[in-house]
């Protein structure tokens, strides 16, 4: 289904469901600014048929809306799922029964998905299983179209929504409000195609760059001037587990909460937009190393080159960066040498 760019002929009807998650993507979305979420939804011509945190309809009224969507009598243009699909225990779905129905929530998700024009997995849980799939995944959590890195999920590998697109995975833990708003505006304008999605069907609008891009610590990175403790100013790749050089998201060029990012907050990127981020195989804020060299180097750089360049740049590290890297506040500031005594 396409619309003339920018002008849908009628509101896009959106249903939002939550399953095995924390509600954090909704709460993050409420932080949408300039303009606010209600105005952004209006701008995208989106009409919210039901959202568990925001709608008036409750109980039987809400069930009526969802039942009509599930049997196809109520058209749904956009189905959003927040939180993972829960299959446990033993494949029964009993760990999440839909309130008021006694039936596994995944049945309702699957039924509405069969009729929806577009489907958005909101957050890494709905996309891949996410944190809910951590620690051995006793609850058998998975995503809509993936279980971790394996294609499949609730809807099956190769699934296409009525509108022709695969499940759109706005992965992140949680999502940035801008990632969602960008996506629905593009859907409303009819301009979102499969070419606008990356290999995990994440919108390229936010995954066409690495978290590393625009990181305020890039100067430290260049000279391998490293932070030693969380809160230090230096680059966090060498000691503190930072995955910014592999993680795909625009966190350092599109601010969180007005001005922040994980990196400006003083802690590493844990690659929360990627499948399987919940089980890095090591402590999140430590870098595993083999004979002093971090494993998990930037993916698109030959290891030998990295090691050679690193030792070269380390030898050339300006004193300012060397002194400041392992401190929470700078000891040496940049100076203009034309000023006498500088």
């Amino acid at each position, binding site marked *: 289904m396409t619309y003339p760019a920018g002008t849908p002929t009628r509101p896009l009807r959106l249903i939002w469901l939550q399953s095995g998650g924390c*509600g954090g993507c909704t709460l993050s979305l*409420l932080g949408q600014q300039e303009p606010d979420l209600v105005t952004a939804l209006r701008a995208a011509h989106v009409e919210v048929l039901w959202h568990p*945190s925001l709608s008036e309809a*409750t109980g039987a009224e809400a069930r009526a809306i969802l039942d009509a969507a599930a049997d196809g009598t109520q058209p749904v243009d956009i189905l959003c799922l927040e939180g993972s699909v829960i299959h446990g225990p033993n494949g029964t779905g009993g760990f999440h029964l839909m309130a008021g129905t006694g039936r596994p929530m995944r049945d309702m998700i699957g039924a509405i998905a069969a009729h929806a024009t577009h489907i958005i997995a909101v957050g890494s849980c709905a996309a891949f299983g996410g944190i809910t799939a951590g*620690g051995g995944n006793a609850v058998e959590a998975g995503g809509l179209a993936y279980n971790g890195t394996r294609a499949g999920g609730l809807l099956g590998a190769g699934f296409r929504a009525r509108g022709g697109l695969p499940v759109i995975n706005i992965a992140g833990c*949680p999502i940035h409000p801008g990632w969602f708003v960008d996506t629905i505006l593009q859907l409303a304008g009819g301009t979102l195609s499969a070419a606008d999605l990356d290999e995990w069907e994440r919108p390229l609008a936010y995954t066409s760059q690495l978290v590393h891009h625009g990181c305020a610590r890039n100067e430290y990175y260049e000279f391998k001037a490293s932070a030693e403790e969380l*809160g230090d100013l230096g680059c966090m790749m060498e000691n503190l587990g930072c995955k910014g050089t592999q993680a795909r998201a625009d966190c350092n060029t599109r601010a969180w909460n007005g001005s*922040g*990012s994980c990196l400006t907050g003083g802690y590493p990127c844990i690659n929360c937009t990627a499948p399987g981020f919940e089980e890095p195989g090591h402590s999140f804020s430590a870098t595993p190393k083999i004979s002093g060299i971090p494993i998990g180097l930037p993916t698109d750089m030959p290891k030998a080159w990295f090691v050679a360049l690193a030792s070269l740049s380390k030898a050339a590290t300006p004193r300012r960066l060397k002194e400041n890297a392992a401190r929470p*506040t700078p000891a040496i500031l940049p100076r203009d040498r034309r000023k006498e005594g500088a």
Partner: protein
Amino acid sequence: MSEKPSRLILGPFNRVEGDLEVRLDIAGDHVEGARVTSPLYRGFEAMLVGRPAADALTYAPRICGICSVSQSVAAARALAGVRPAGLERRLPPANGQHAINLVHAVENIADHITHFYLFFMPDFARATYAGEPWHEAAAGRFTALKGSAATQILPARAGLMNMMGVLAGKWPHTLSIQPGGSTRAITRAEQARLRLMLAGFRSFCENTLFAAPLEAVAAISSREALYDWAQGRGGDFAHFLKIAQRLDLARSGVTRLRHIAFGAYAGGDGPLFPRGMFDAGIGAAGPLPIGAITEDVSHAWYAGEGGAPRHAAPTPDMSNPDAYSWCKAPRLGGNVAEVGALSRQLVAGHPLLRDYVARDGASVEARVVARVIEVALVVMAMEHWIAAIDPAAPFQDTRPRLDTGDAMGLTEAARGSLGHWLRLDGGRISHYQIIAPTTWNFSPRDAQGVPGPLEQALVGAPIRAGETEPVSVQHIVRSFDPCMVCTVH
């Protein structure tokens, strides 16, 4: 409707955080009994076992997206509490404490106004009230997503949350809160900017929420004085009070239980809101015996023994025929206890809330009033914490900590007392138990058959003619500001 059903199942119960089902036994025109079900289990306590200690700081906030900082604070305190017997707890440096308090306060205040505007007030716009003289104004202001309040509250909330960008990098799920303080040092310029952001929020409160200075609101000391204050006043709080008086919400959803608080916003001279217990039955306050806290699983889907969270770790099991929820039943010395903003203010001795409860017990109105009053109290405290930051001094103590031992981390989320109990063995987590605020408030029956606070509060709730989703039940449930993802975790 002539023949009313004797059973009513309400769900999905929306505009609460997470999944909730409420089953009611109806007698004539009122509720006779209630059973509250939390239908989602994720298993964070089990997930954490075996992980490196610091992973608790990545996992715990992800228990909940509405109070992720509270979960962080509890986890960081628990990790910081692992220490040799008899040795003093090492407090983070003052800056770290102020930074954590600010981050925590931003979240709690955002919670309070999100609850008031987006979760609670929209019920007054419901069609069942169409005949009431106040309905048109309430619907215009508070209808979900469409009322005039929505496009005012959202920018104000987002503006407040911008303090998170400076103080914590990212919200929800920040990693800035550590056992030794905060990872984010604040510069003088940022300190000034934080002051500006908070000033923006104060002005929203004083123009839109209260139509009065915060100081004046915080000083109101009795229910009569509050009603007088609201007379002829604009602002959404007075709007609520006028509707609440018409509907007699000060006598709706009543409990007379023990109220507990774990202490909120640490400081050199003790917390801003103290730890303690207040018995609403007898109107007296006293110390809180933390060691008397246990969890009962007689009516929850778990196998194994309940007991003290320090030792017990029941595992999920759906075969118990008496069970009807994933929520366990926390008890204090075997007794039911209520938690939340009202409990905090009762323990702290706020005269207005003590007056409310002395007259009619804990009620829908008292719970909402406590929450809104707390917005005023905490914003004023935040101004002091910002001023007290010394950008030249450290924000955290990064000395290594012990990697074996037991500890608990206690704090207050917006909706009440939150505790984490853990054990570390050689740097790895070997035991982790969480008791969340809504676990107390929405607990199922215990082995003695005693219902939890919400189940008690619902008894007697009136049902208007023809109602299938009784609006009184909606008010009572939401007055607790439940968070269901925390409840079961």
